[in-house]
């Protein structure tokens, strides 16, 4: 296999050590003077009121949902695009049917207001 994934493995390990080495160096150099006031949750100097948990609106989920389905679509689009030269008119038509079906989905989401930030 000529794809050099071994390098990726090594490089990932090295990349992971970068922040760790940095934090170790900082741990040696920086002052350590924690205090109860210092370690309170930051809220512009005011005391935190209530729970950290907020009720998020379902809008966030709808964006993630449409994103996931379009992300899956790219999984099919990329091999198609790369193989396109060798495929001819049939592949073009097939892909347009695929895209049209998903475009219907996008149009539906649009009409139903799933794309509105409220």
């Amino acid at each position, binding site marked *: *296999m000529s794809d050099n994934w071994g390098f990726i493995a090594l490089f990932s390990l090295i990349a992971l050590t970068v922040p760790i080495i940095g934090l170790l160096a900082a741990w040696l150099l920086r002052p350590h003077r924690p205090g109860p006031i210092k370690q309170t949750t930051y809220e512009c100097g005011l005391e935190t009121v209530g729970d950290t948990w907020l009720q998020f609106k379902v809008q966030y989920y709808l964006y993630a*949902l449409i994103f996931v389905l379009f992300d899956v679509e790219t999984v099919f689009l990329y091999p198609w695009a790369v193989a396109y030269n060798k495929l001819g008119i049939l592949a073009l038509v097939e892909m347009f049917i695929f895209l049209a079906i998903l475009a219907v989905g996008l149009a539906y989401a649009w009409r139903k207001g799933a794309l509105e930030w409220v």
Partner: protein
Amino acid sequence: MSPLLLQQIAFMVLAAISLSGAWGVIRAHSVFVSALWLILSFVGVAGLYVMLEAGFLAVIQVLVYVGAISVLILFAIMLTEDVMGQAEPASQWPLAVLIVLPFFGMLAKAAFTADWQLSAGSVAPPEGASISAETAKLVTTAIPAEQGFRLPGQVVMLGRSLMTEHLLAFEVVAVVLLVALVGAIVIARD
């Protein structure tokens, strides 16, 4: 140290990552942390795909599972669970163990004893398998040295395969995705 040993070490590390990620999913005290362990498991499996020479699939695994499905799960947790909520200890674990252990034993036995008819290693083309010179050019990633240009490799093969042999499945997936989109929007909105 030989390349084989290095490969085996890499396999061990990746298997440990994916299994410990899965273990974390059932041991973690909060749903959010559970989801993080799940993501670790996905990454480990992607690494195993690389070892199986399915580079495209590995990248897709990271893109879809780590980059997309995990976002969906994390958003759903944010929307439903008390963010800091602690999961209660599992209730029916003795029963579950009673089901899972024999199941595991059965699968493991099958993995060892079944005749998988492994053919990797056979140098001669098996009966009925033929490959055209053009396809051969597509699958290989050999680089003609003086051009310094890489042939596109497996991805082209995949694209072809999707557009020809698996065309029906390909278009059905589009419909499934559409139905999922419409259904999920209808369900999730009030």
